[in-house]
């Protein structure tokens, strides 16, 4: 998909920890969906999470902004530990942006209002300033001319780019993507991926669930492979694709790259 350049620019990664997950477990009822997850993400790192359907990828990244609650272990985001304390949850959520598979734009608001809502009501930014910021990010995702339209009037790819802009308006330090392109037609996937690549090149910390292997090769520092609620393998994209270690990974790669 994306033009994976052979030589990636060396992007700076700080030594600052953005997300730390330690011995984290989660159950849905009696179903053990995430098992002993340990993962550290540095600021500026770009991580691609992949794995078969039902392996718990969505659940994992939804735990990071507490859309799902974990039952044991620790998740620390930017130094704030996620507990049932609502203050911490609000703090983390305002620092972590999320982009969903089905965009989840607010259909009753215009594109501009979608983008200014959270800054105005969560960050208390004055309306005018919020609108300027929103227009800036809408220009960045290349759809400023759609600002006054409603989400229902946009194509899927445009909607997803608005969703990205909406998250960016909160000036997040970390971005989570849950299969941002899998509900899109092939010709729209590229426009969304390009936006994400641009974002990655600016040094945004990103955790991205995706099966776009071209994207993984182009921007990821690390690919995490999950199966049955566990992290099975993680490595640099180069190693991960060329030299997979576990049988599960090999099987998965052969299925996904085989056609």
């Amino acid at each position, binding site marked *: 998909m994306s033009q994976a350049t052979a030589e990636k620019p060396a992007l700076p990664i700080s030594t600052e920890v953005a997300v730390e997950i330690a011995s984290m477990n989660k159950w849905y009822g009696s179903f053990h969906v995430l098992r002993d997850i340990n993962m550290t993400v540095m600021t500026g790192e770009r991580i691609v999470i992949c794995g078969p359907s039902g392996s718990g990828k969505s659940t994992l990244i939804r735990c990071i902004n507490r859309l799902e609650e974990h039952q044991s272990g620790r998740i620390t985001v930017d130094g704030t530990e996620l507990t049932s304390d609502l203050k911490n949850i609000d703090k983390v959520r305002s620092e972590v942006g999320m982009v*969903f598979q089905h965009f989840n734009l607010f259909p009753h608001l215009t594109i501009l209002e979608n983008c200014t809502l959270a800054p105005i009501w969560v960050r208390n930014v004055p309306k005018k300033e919020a609108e300027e910021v929103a227009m800036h990010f809408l220009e960045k995702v290349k759809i400023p001319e759609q600002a006054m339209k409603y989400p*229902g009037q946009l194509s899927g790819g445009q909607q997803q780019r608005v969703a990205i802009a909406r998250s960016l308006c909160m000036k997040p330090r970390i971005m989570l993507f849950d299969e941002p392109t899998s509900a899109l037609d092939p010709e729209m996937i590229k426009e969304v991926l390009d936006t994400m690549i641009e974002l990655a090149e600016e040094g945004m910390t990103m955790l991205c669930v995706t099966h776009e292997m071209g994207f993984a090769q182009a921007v990821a520092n690390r690919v995490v492979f999950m199966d049955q609620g566990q992290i099975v393998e993680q490595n640099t994209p180069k190693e991960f694709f060329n030299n997979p270690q576990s049988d599960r990974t090999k099987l998965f790669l052969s299925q996904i790259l085989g056609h």
Partner: protein
Amino acid sequence: MTALPGPYVRTEMLPQQPPPIGQAGLLRWVRENLFSSVLNATLTLVTILVVFSLVRHMLPWFANSVWTAGSLTECREMLDGKTGACFSVVADRWNQMVFGFYPVELYWRPILAVVLLLAALAPMLFSGVPRQLLWFSVFYPAVAVWLLWGGSLWGPILATVGFGIAFMVYQSVARLQALLAAPLALLSLMVWWLWGVGLVAGVAQSIVPLDLTEVRSHEFGGFMLSVVIGVTGIALSLPMGILLALGRKSDLFLIRTVCIGFIEFIRGVPLITLLFTASTLLNYFLPPNTNFDITLRVIIMVTIFAAAYMAEVIRGGLSALPTGQYEAADALGLNYWKAQRLIIMPQALKISIPGIVNTFIGLFKDTTLVIFIGLLDPLGLTNSIRADVNWNGIYWELFLFVGVMFFIVCFSMSRYSMYLERRLKTDHL
């Protein structure tokens, strides 16, 4: 099988042409909708016949109607044996039908209240009206209570101010201790209403007396009574229904249980039972000698009755929203109330508009049930009009009049809801 299609390239584009005659306009519509098949054509003809004979029967009754007679006997004399309606009763008792037994010299007060009501509603109903008018809407209930019942303006106004005080208490406490904020705000509201209002109103009254002649509830009647009960019930049942619907979906066990219990109980009981409770039973529970206004009691019952239905209508709207909307709101850091107010409710209410208006219409028509507890709504008044020798024996004209008036109000609500749905439509314009 003729020759195989060869390669083809269009060299000129065809201009748009009008459809052939008989395919457009009235003729086509008639053929498609009224005479598309033998069965359809037969039904059309039969229906025309039925409508025609009905109209032929009723037309003289309307055409010969008398508007000026002073009594039924006089009316019959004027008709001189012909069939004809005697609408003179409407003309003769118009004031009573509209105002009940409200003092004649004070008619200007309910009229002014209705005019102001329209002004208060305008910014809520239509998008072109300046938003600042909403401040007037906030204080309208106090002004309306004052105009209708009289007494001092300070009481109702200061009672309204209580909400502002409670809000300020909430804001300032919430910054320090989030959990205490709501109970403290509620407490301050109660304290204000029980003691503060009386005290401050007394002082204010002695400085700037704003007094109107008092009018007792039992002097209310006719359409004025229906409108007072209906409008208050409508205005209160929507917010109460929203809270009940949210409570029913709440994660907090106690709140959820209470809301479900309330909704199911109220929905399971006929309104008339609640009204009887309001008029008689409530006296047993209240301390002796308390004068708890009967209109107010009826309004409370009608409101909670409609609110239970409203809650279910709104719950339907809430269920129709995809979970993605909640998740997006959460992910952006909006808290529960902000998410409800900015994301969830605007969409859920929009989906529920037909159901909500349905409940409003039902509520407004149900106000006629107060006849059974002795209040003189328009239907109750028809009885007392007939009790007068002059109008003894007149039924049709009065009922028709009441029916038409109710129809006008209910039909307007229905049309408004359609307008609103169109206006709020944001998908594929």
